[in-house]
């Protein structure tokens, strides 16, 4: 069939081309929606692959936090840490969470970009449900942000975090969840904010406080009440703690330090289980994705 069409230009009579290749676009349905979500997802991957500079620059900030901040503050924090555990080890899970923050948000930002440069219109006039597009976009952003996280995860050895397969897989799973929720948050914002500058300014303004309040750089115990409340309101807390919990359960340290360095999240004294903690993050991601879908369904 493919070879037939190559000399199609020579075909003299009208309508011949139409007969050669019958393109009957089907009447929708789940399979079509899946294909649409799939191609939106794949586009994210293609864009990520061709944009190596972005992958490298996104790595700079977490590397600075881990090695410069981690080493510098390590001298101060050394006394409260058990022998053999460095401050770098302590902040590694938090900085790992940070490594996906910007990639996830930036992936959502491309919606605003696409709107400014017209490509969004190509997507929005397609005969597919907006839901499949938003789902594809959220999963695409989650995937590339997780890749970004995995690159940083490769540095685990420098922070004395063991390359234990169970630990690595757990962390990747948690990264994927975090990336998904962050992308969904970004996509939800992008549905409303039409200017690229405004989007970047607003998300940066929100993302940095969320990171600092998540307990990524300090333990959740012994905090003043105001900070303690804020950390528990920050959704990122609910994924940073499970990540630290996973790392610390694979370290050989005395239990009293375990309790001190990686205390669980408590709600008025009740310890929140890991599963619930991750469930909260997942539920928020799904809810924000739902809002994004509703927003994109509106017509002028």
């Amino acid at each position, binding site marked *: 069939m493919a070879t037939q069409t190559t000399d199609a230009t020579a075909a003299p009579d009208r*309508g011949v081309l139409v007969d050669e290749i019958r393109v009957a676009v089907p009447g929708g349905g789940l399979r079509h929606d899946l294909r649409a979500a799939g191609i939106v997802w794949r*586009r994210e991957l293609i864009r990520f692959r061709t944009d190596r500079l972005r992958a490298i620059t996104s790595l700079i900030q977490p590397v600075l936090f881990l090695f410069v901040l981690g080493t510098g503050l390590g001298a101060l924090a050394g006394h409260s840490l058990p022998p053999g555990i460095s401050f770098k080890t302590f902040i590694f899970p938090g900085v790992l969470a940070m490594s996906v923050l910007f990639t996830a948000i930036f992936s959502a930002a491309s919606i605003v970009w696409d709107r400014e440069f017209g490509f969004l219109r190509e997507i929005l006039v397609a005969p*597919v449900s907006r839901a499949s597009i938003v789902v594809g976009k959220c999963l695409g952003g989650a995937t590339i942000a997780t890749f970004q996280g995995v690159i940083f995860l490769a540095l685990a050895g420098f922070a004395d975090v063991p390359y234990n397969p169970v630990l690595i897989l757990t962390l990747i799973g948690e990264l994927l969840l975090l990336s998904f929720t962050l992308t969904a948050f970004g996509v939800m914002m992008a549905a409303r904010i039409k200017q690229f500058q405004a989007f970047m300014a607003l998300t940066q303004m929100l993302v940095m406080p969320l990171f600092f309040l998540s307990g990524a750089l300090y333990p959740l115990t012994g905090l003043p009440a105001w900070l303690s409340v804020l950390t528990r309101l920050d959704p990122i807390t609910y994924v940073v703690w499970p990540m630290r919990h996973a790392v610390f359960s694979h370290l050989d340290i005395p239990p009293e330090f375990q309790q001190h360095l990686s205390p669980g999240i408590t709600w008025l004294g009740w310890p929140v289980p890991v599963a619930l903690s991750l469930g909260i993050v997942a539920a928020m991601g799904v809810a924000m994705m739902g809002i994004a879908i509703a927003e994109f369904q509106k017509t*002028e």
Partner: protein
Amino acid sequence: MVTHTSTNTGGAVAPDGATAAAPRVQDPVISVSGLTKQYGEVQAVRGIEFEVARGETFGFLGPNGAGKTTTIKILCTLANATSGSARVAGHDAMTERDSVRRNIGLVFQDNTLDTYLTAEQNLRFHAELYGVPKAAVAPRMRQVMDMVGLWDRKDSLVSTYSGGMQRRLEIARGLLHAPRVLFLDEPTVGLDPQTRSSIWTYINELKSREDITIFLTTHYMDEAENCDRIAIIDHGKIVAIDTPEALKASVGKDRVQIQTADDPAAIAALAETFGIEAAMHEGAVTFSVAAGEQFVPRLFAEFSVPIRSVSVSRPSLDDVFMSYTGTTIRDAEASGTDAMRQMVQRFRSGRR
């Protein structure tokens, strides 16, 4: 068909031609009736009515801001009409969006390609999004890219394409899912004249090859001549619909433009001596007379104001536009631009 009775070019719209009667066609692919669209205070489309036959190339001609893009947006399901109905390829554009979308191809006036992807990746994206059957994707992709002469550049990033190549790729992409109607919103705007004519070569070739109806908007008179039928739209209303030939014939007069030493005096003298109503258009005293070349000798013989230059032209679509709207399309654009400039100025000072 067109009830056009205006007797002078400088005059207003013919009283009964304010909304041209929409001729009915056999087997319409697009049919629009009583369509209006309101954006806040602004009424962009004020009750338009027309039908487009299968296989026809139908042009919407009007200055910027006349309501062309709004109409196309409604037909393409990108905007809801305030009132009225629009059916495209047998489906209602407001309530059966997906069915309409499956049957139409779109080429917008601004770029909607992902310039960070290759041409082929752009087309593949489109094929998947439109659910083109898997077996047909590769051959159809090759076919449409051959048609616009871009097959050998399929692996290049779109950012390396020239403006004309990008527009051709957009046309190819719009055809990929074999739509029944192809919408071209200002398909050649912003391109140099040579590229414009090459785009038209591709469009005409396409018409001869595929069983397709083309709906296009333009504000270039010469491009409108490529259409089977034209609707002239001004201030949100259709003022005339017909073939380019019939529209030109309806004007029936030649256009004369003269440059004089004293334009207001010349206009007064024309009215006094010949009973002709003239007006300033495009910087020249402009009027219409039957048999222009026979009128010019009389003009020189009897006219008191010194004349620097004269031009006589057969009725063109420009004259058609002028006779129906009372202004040339360029003047209409210029005043539109002025209004825009004022608006921007107001906006700026408001923010200061």
